């Protein structure tokens, strides 16, 4: 028997709309359903193997050594004393090759290398390798290092006036349109305020971990990474080997939120040590090192200017952001990202500048840009509504643009106003009282609203899908599941299009030996990787139709059977020695000719204690649209997680840098306060029906980040409504509210 086109590659570049989707015409009825994660039982029974858990023979344990000055040159590292300790194998460093800091996501170049000249407190400068983790840790903590310290730049306020314009890059740092000054002058109502947000850390449950094994000059790295395809290239370039000599395995990742987009210092340290010792080396970051030496979300200072005419129509929007990063690093926190397209208004100024500081690298953390940018924009919109004296939802309605106000292109789909209206109805928005007037005992109550918006992106992504002799489908791609539900939705897409029970789809992820996927980042994973799987399955449908001897459109696939021409044949009987196809999706003109984004509306109710200033979120509702929802349960979980992040941003999370040396002060989960269960009330999530035919063949848009976008602003606006106190320096800890509360 022939393979009927076995090995087909079905490629699609999104250069035109894709109005029909097989997900609508297929019959399995599994897409969108809130099915449990297919990897769930493995995770709860400990059978899902994470990077640090591979049981290899002869593993040596590494413990990373950090620099304990903020700036300076290493003059001596006393390896001999450490090496004499029991169980210690070696103290290994390679000043030129060790990573100064992690790489950003999607880059194919090596990160900045070189650690002899210390760039920030906590930089990883060496690795101690021992026969046990405990012995390595003991020696690493006692390792003596001498430095010739030098002057550093450690304080944002001190250096904020030295901010520089970023180099041109993918996200333009500057946009000027019309005349902001003139617009503000003409405005009847004006807001000119400054919001600040602190550095944050993703604090993913799984710390960064790498297990490096060399065999015949080739490296396998079991790593905790979000984007293996580009991580592999970064790692190869860091080590000076060709990319085909590097394989990354990241089958399960315990949360990333951006901190694992690019490779981090532990990978190169483990790889160098493993090569030198000729045995596998494992390097797991201590929690404190995750705070010290991975990625932070930059602190921001954001000046917001809004000018509206008498009717509340915006005629001026200014969003000027100052962020921070290490010298030489291009990345800036793009806080103005959503401001480009969320509201109408002809005179616009959106800028970003970078203050160079000797602090831990800043990079992407969940919804880079919008997560903190919408704190300022949506806070200022709330302030403008108060200033004009109209309802904040009505203000947003009056400024709903007909097209992208900057690029002058249509929105591919946009249901911001329906989200706001549905949320208002469900949340009881009409019962909102004037600020500071709803006191119940020692608590002031208030409710707040904010828009959610997050750009939709499509990334190049490939997947192979095969059907074996038992009629089971196998999906293979180096795409990752970082807790988001990728395994499950790729399984659902396959099951839907090939007409299989979900149990008959086996999904293999996170191995660079498989076709390169988009990786998990920027909310693009489901749309991009899902589309590649869609395309592979579409090709397989052609192969199945050919084997059945029927026209593809006349064929129905359901429950493992092929139904056409008054026949119903088990799929297994048609596959012969197996079928396989590869799908490849690529972004095209549709992302330029349309503005694509996911939207939503956050509602929050808070109570503020009049004595202590403590804030308790009482309830939250998020109403979202993101095109087709591929799995209502995992989608809801993504939004719940985002909203919880929002509570942390609003109330508790702040990574503190010591102004004397840049050191991260609160470097554990005891003092870096992510919300705990008691901080998170009942959260409600609702999705409105939407399809986006410009986005991809799935008609789905990104969902992993829209849940955080605007969530903190809704809490902040609710605090204002409760207390009448507007605090613009996040997080809104009790000390900042005390002065504005009634005298006790």
């Amino acid at each position, binding site marked *: 028997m022939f393979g009927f086109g076995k090995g087909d590659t079905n490629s699609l570049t999104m250069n035109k709309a894709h109005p029909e989707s097989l997900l609508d015409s297929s019959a399995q009825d599994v897409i969108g359903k809130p099915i449990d994660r297919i990897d769930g039982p493995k995770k709860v029974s400990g059978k899902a193997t994470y990077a640090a858990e591979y049981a290899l023979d002869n593993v040596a344990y590494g413990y990373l050594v*950090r620099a*304990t000055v903020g700036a300076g040159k290493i003059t001596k590292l006393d390896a001999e004393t450490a090496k004499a300790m*029991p169980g210690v194998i070696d103290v290994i460093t390679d000043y030129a090759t060790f990573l100064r800091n992690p790489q950003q996501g999607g880059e194919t170049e090596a990160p900045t290398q070189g650690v002899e000249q210390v760039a920030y407190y906590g930089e990883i400068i060496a690795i101690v390798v021992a026969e046990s983790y*405990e012995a390595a*840790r*003991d020696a690493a*903590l*006692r390792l003596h290092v001498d430095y010739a310290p030098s002057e550093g730049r450690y304080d944002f306020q001190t250096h904020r006036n030295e901010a520089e314009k970023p180099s041109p890059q993918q996200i333009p740092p500057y946009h000027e349109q019309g005349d902001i000054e003139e617009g503000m002058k003409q405005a009847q109502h004006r807001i000119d305020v400054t919001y600040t947000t602190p550095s944050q850390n993703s604090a993913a449950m799984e710390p960064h971990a790498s297990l490096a094994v060399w065999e015949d000059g080739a490296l396998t790295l079991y790593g905790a990474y979000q984007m293996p395809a580009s991580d592999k290239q970064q790692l190869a370039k860091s080590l000076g080997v060709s990319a085909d000599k590097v394989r990354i395995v990241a089958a399960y990742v315990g949360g990333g939120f951006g901190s694992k987009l690019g490779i981090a210092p532990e990978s190169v340290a483990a790889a160098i040590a493993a090569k030198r010792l000729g045995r596998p080396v494992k390097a797991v970051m201590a929690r*404190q090192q995750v705070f010290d030496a991975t990625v932070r979300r930059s602190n921001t200072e954001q000046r917001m200017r809004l000018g509206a005419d008498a009717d509340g129509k915006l005629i001026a929007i200014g969003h000027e952001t100052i962020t921070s990063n290490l010298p030489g690093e291009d990345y800036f926190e793009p806080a103005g990202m959503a401001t480009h397209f969320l509201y109408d208004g002809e005179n616009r100024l959106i800028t970003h500048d970078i203050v160079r500081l000797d602090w831990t690298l800043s990079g992407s953390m969940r919804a880079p840009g919008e997560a903190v940018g919408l704190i300022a924009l949506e806070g200022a919109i709330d302030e403008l509504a108060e200033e004009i004296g109209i309802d904040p939802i009505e203000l947003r309605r009056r400024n709903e643009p007909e097209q992208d106000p900057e690029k002058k292109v249509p929105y591919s789909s946009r249901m911001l106003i329906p989200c706001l209206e549905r949320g208002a109805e469900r949340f009881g928005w009409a019962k909102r009282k004037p600020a500071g007037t709803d006191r119940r005992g*020692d608590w002031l109550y208030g409710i707040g609203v904010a828009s959610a918006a997050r750009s939709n992106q499509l990334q190049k992504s490939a997947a192979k899908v095969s059907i074996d002799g038992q009629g089971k489908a196998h999906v293979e791609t180096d795409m990752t599941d970082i807790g988001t539900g990728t395994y499950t939705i790729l399984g659902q897409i396959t099951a839907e299009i090939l007409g299989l029970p979900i149990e008959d789809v086996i999904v293999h992820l996170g191995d660079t030996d498989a076709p390169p996927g988009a990786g998990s980042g920027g909310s693009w994973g489901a749309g991009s990787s899902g589309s590649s799987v869609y395309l592979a399955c579409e090709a397989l449908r052609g192969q199945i139709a050919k084997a059945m001897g029927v026209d593809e459109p006349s064929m129905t696939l359901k429950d493992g059977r092929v139904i056409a021409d008054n026949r119903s044949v088990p799929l297994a009987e048609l596959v012969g020695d197996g079928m396989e196809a590869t799908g490849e999706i690529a972004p095209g003109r549709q992302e330029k000719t349309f503005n694509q984004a996911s939207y939503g509306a956050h509602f929050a109710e808070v109570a503020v204690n009049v*004595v*202590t*200033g*403590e804030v*308790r979120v009482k309830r939250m509702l998020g109403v979202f649209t993101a095109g087709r929802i591929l799995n209502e349960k995992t989608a809801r979980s993504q939004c719940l997680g985002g909203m919880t992040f929002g509570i942390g941003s609003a*109330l*508790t999370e702040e990574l*503190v840098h*010591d102004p*004397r040396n840049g*050191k991260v*002060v*609160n*470097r*554990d989960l*005891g*003092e870096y*306060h992510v*919300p*705990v*269960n*008691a*901080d998170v009330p009942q959260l409600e999530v609702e999705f409105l029906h939407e399809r986006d035919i410009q986005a991809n063949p799935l008609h789905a848009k990104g969902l992993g980040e829209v849940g955080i976008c605007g969530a903190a602003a809704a809490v902040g606006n609710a605090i204002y409504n409760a207390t009448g106190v507007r605090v613009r320096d996040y997080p809104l*800890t*009790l*000390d900042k509210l*005390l002065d504005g509360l009634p005298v*006790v």
Partner: protein
Amino acid sequence: MKTFSYAKADDAETAVRDAHVSGAKYIAGGTNLLDLMKLQVETPEKLVDISRLPLGEIEEREDGGLTIGALVPNSDLAADPRVIAKYEVLSRALLAGASGQLRNKATTGGNLLQRTRCYYFYDTSTACNKREPGSGCSAIGGFNRVLAVLGTSEHCIATHPGDMPVAMRALDATIITLKADGDKRRIPIGDFYRLPGDTPQIETVLEAGELITHVELPAPPKGKQVYVKVRDRASYAFALVSIAGVVEVADGKIASAALAFGGLGPMPWRNPAVEAALVGQAPSDAVFAAAADALLADAKGYGSNDFKIPLARRVLIATLRDLTGE
């Protein structure tokens, strides 16, 4: 974690002799000590495991008080019906601390000795007089949000992080110990802790090898009891300010008052002047303000913890209203 030797104690007398000679640290729940050992903030040469000693009972005494074994877990103490009924402030303080899992492991004796959560104490790369005497204090001039505003010295501004000990201070608990020479000692909790002065590494009056065996609570106090804890998140955070209060009002006047404070000082804080400002007075905002004045007269902020001073004032006044209200 440095290599250490380990001995399991079968009886208290042997344990104290061992610890006296070897300089060992005792371990029971290990909820604080093990974390500190992993970071090499604590580097004991030897651990004596006392977790199997028969010190796990709560007994009523003839005088109406309770004797609490040093190994009674925080969870059990908080849930004891006699504690709930008669020492509500203690039960509430215990439940305000840590998490369920930690309270299951943490013991009464160990919790009295919990060490500060100063950020710099936890980081061995920084100067800290408590961890390394003479090295300096990084918290002064650094970030000190959770640190002390009362009882500090130029050498240390650490706070005692506990909740249970604050309630015990308000309840006038007595700490019973066994010394290396076999003598028992009764230490009123007010005498148990030491101010940092120029020796912040010495936190209590315990001598080498001296083992806490019991905590005695006197007969239940009269009046209303509350424990108020203000913190940076709703659970699993150390107190910014906490108050353990026991106040009796009779014939329209405050007959007795016991007020202890957490989050403000290097020890569970109690100041007789606060109570003197209250006792014999009819409850009023002016009287409460005078009590707050007495508490905070010598308070000193260090920058990021300045807010604790007005916060403590607000919380004390509101707590006193609650304690003296109907």
